[in-house]
């Protein structure tokens, strides 16, 4: 069973890595968008999937990262890839500051507050807050990234940058979900009171997962800004947050393969239905309902954690 899925995943990886060789520019660019959504999805997954917190305002953190990159790049000419840590820092810090007073809110109350946060950030960007975001038109003229003096411009080149980042993210979040931190998040998702009773500082862990998710989304913002070279507040609307939230639950929450599959569905399905132009979003909405009815847990749900007990050499047991 396990080897079976390993073969599938490695075949998929090899196929994906070679895909720019036989796909045209348009489809490579579609894959690039899939990659960006996959990383954003992974960063949100730690909040929604693992900690079970409703976050419908992830675009706000993404926006903070993207605007940090755009402002520092256009004003101080710092190369965009060097700005990655700064984007992570600013988005993470922003999350830490704004989420701190409201982290204790439960379920749907947290949900509306994150929606509100996303809207406040978007409106602040439109209103040119601090005079640095240049209003509704956004910031343009952001540099392309360059690695060792080679400038990355074409979709084929971006493909390897973005999917390389996806690989790093998968590694990072895989390690994170199997760590003490990841287990603590799962515990508080399943039963907050019991987790608190077992000595897990619930508020601290909730805040930490928001900060990590936000920081990671901030770095995606940097890549996004340099890929588009122009960013405007409309790229970070409530709709983006909804898409990210949806892709996690369609693919399978708290499951890395699920989230990546979700990214393919969310970006891919509307592309596939492009032939029927106007009705494509209608079908997309219908498909969302149908998928939830037929695969309630998402397409590739996460499996329960398994532990091999030390004294039982042959048997596996559920913890």
């Amino acid at each position, binding site marked *: 069973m396990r080897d079976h899925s390993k073969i599938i995943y490695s075949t998929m990886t090899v196929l994906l890595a070679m895909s720019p060789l036989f796909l045209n520019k348009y489809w490579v660019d579609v894959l690039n968008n899939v990659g960006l959504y996959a990383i954003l999805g992974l960063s949100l997954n730690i909040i929604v999937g693992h900690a079970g917190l409703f976050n419908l305002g992830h675009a706000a953190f993404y926006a903070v990262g993207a605007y940090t990159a755009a402002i520092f790049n256009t004003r101080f000419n710092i190369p965009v890839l060097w700005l990655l840590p700064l984007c992570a820092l600013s988005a993470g810090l922003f999350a830490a500051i704004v989420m701190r007073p409201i982290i204790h*809110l439960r379920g*749907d109350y947290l949900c509306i507050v994150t929606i*509100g946060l996303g809207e406040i950030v978007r409106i602040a960007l439109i209103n040119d807050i601090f005079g640095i975001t240049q209003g509704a038109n956004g910031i343009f003229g952001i540099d392309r990234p360059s690695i060792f003096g080679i400038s990355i411009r074409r979709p084929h080149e971006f493909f390897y940058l973005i999917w390389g980042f996806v690989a790093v993210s998968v590694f990072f979040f895989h390690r994170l979900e199997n760590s003490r931190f990841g287990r603590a998040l799962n515990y508080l998702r399943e039963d907050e*009171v019991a987790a608190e009773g077992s000595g897990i500082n619930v508020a601290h862990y909730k805040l930490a997962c928001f900060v990590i998710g936000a920081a990671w989304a901030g770095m995606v913002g940097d890549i996004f800004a340099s890929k588009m070279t122009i960013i405007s507040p409309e790229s970070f609307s409530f709709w983006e947050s909804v898409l990210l*939230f949806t892709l996690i*639950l369609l693919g399978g929450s708290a499951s890395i393969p699920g989230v990546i599959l979700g990214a393919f569905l969310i970006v891919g399905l509307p592309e596939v239905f492009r032939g029927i132009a106007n009705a494509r*979003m*209608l079908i997309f*909405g219908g498909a969302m309902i149908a998928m*939830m009815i037929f695969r309630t847990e998402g397409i590739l749900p996460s499996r329960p954690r398994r532990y091999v007990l030390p004294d039982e050499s042959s048997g596996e047991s559920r913890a």
Partner: protein
Amino acid sequence: MEEFFQQLTNGLAVGAIYALIALGYTMVYGVLKLINFAHGELFTIGSYLGLTLLTSLGLSDVFGPVLAILLLAAMVMGLVAVVGALLERTAYRPLRESPRLSAVVSALGASIFFQNAVMLIYGARLRVYPLGILPRTAVNLFGIYLPLVKLLILFASVAIMTALYLYIHKTRIGTAIRAAAIDQGAARLMGIDVDRVILIVFLIGPALGGAAGLMVGLLYGQINFTMGWVYGLKAFTAAILGGIGNIPGAMVGGILLGVIEAMGAAYISIAWKDAIAFVVLILILIVRPTGLLGERVAEKV
């Protein structure tokens, strides 16, 4: 001071509309613990259906303006209620036993579905309500200019909300709704047909949303297919502000949000109008984490 009262009445009219939509959110949430994200779209459907009936039937020629509007409202509410019941049947009932988040995604899917269905049927462009359905007279109350439309909206929504309050608190079915909201399992054991209660909630909520849709059409004269998103979000904010699941809370939250928005737009900045509502919401939730009228639920272990 005149300016202040003018803004206050504007805020009250919009707030009454928010309150009507918020009631739909809060009632569904009370019974199913589900945020019905498609509710904003039911509101849009109400306002488009109102437009269709208004232009095709020509009621006001036969019955005179006020009676025609009442008839129109009854028809719109009935039709949207049917759409709401169908929505519950197809998108939510199969997910009754599944994790809460799956139902939320189904609701988001339904919202996208409805929004695009309206776009395909009526087109993506702004639609305009015919002028002169209601006489454009205004009442002058101590120097405050009150258009008839706003007065009508205020009266109608107060009437609807009072009726709803009495229905929920004085009738058998209302009692059943309250019981199912407190504990569905126990309600079932007491012989309450919970499926019927849910159906009733999905008839009342969308009907109120549809009425609100018609009101927006009459008040602003123009509608578009994405407006459900904005009004839905505001109304959901109002429901949370009052304490979700709490019916008087939704009414208070809606009115309060409308007034705050109008005042914020007038005295602080119109460009920040939408942000002000959310800032107030966050501030209130920091102080009262379960909304203004939401009761504190002690966690039982």
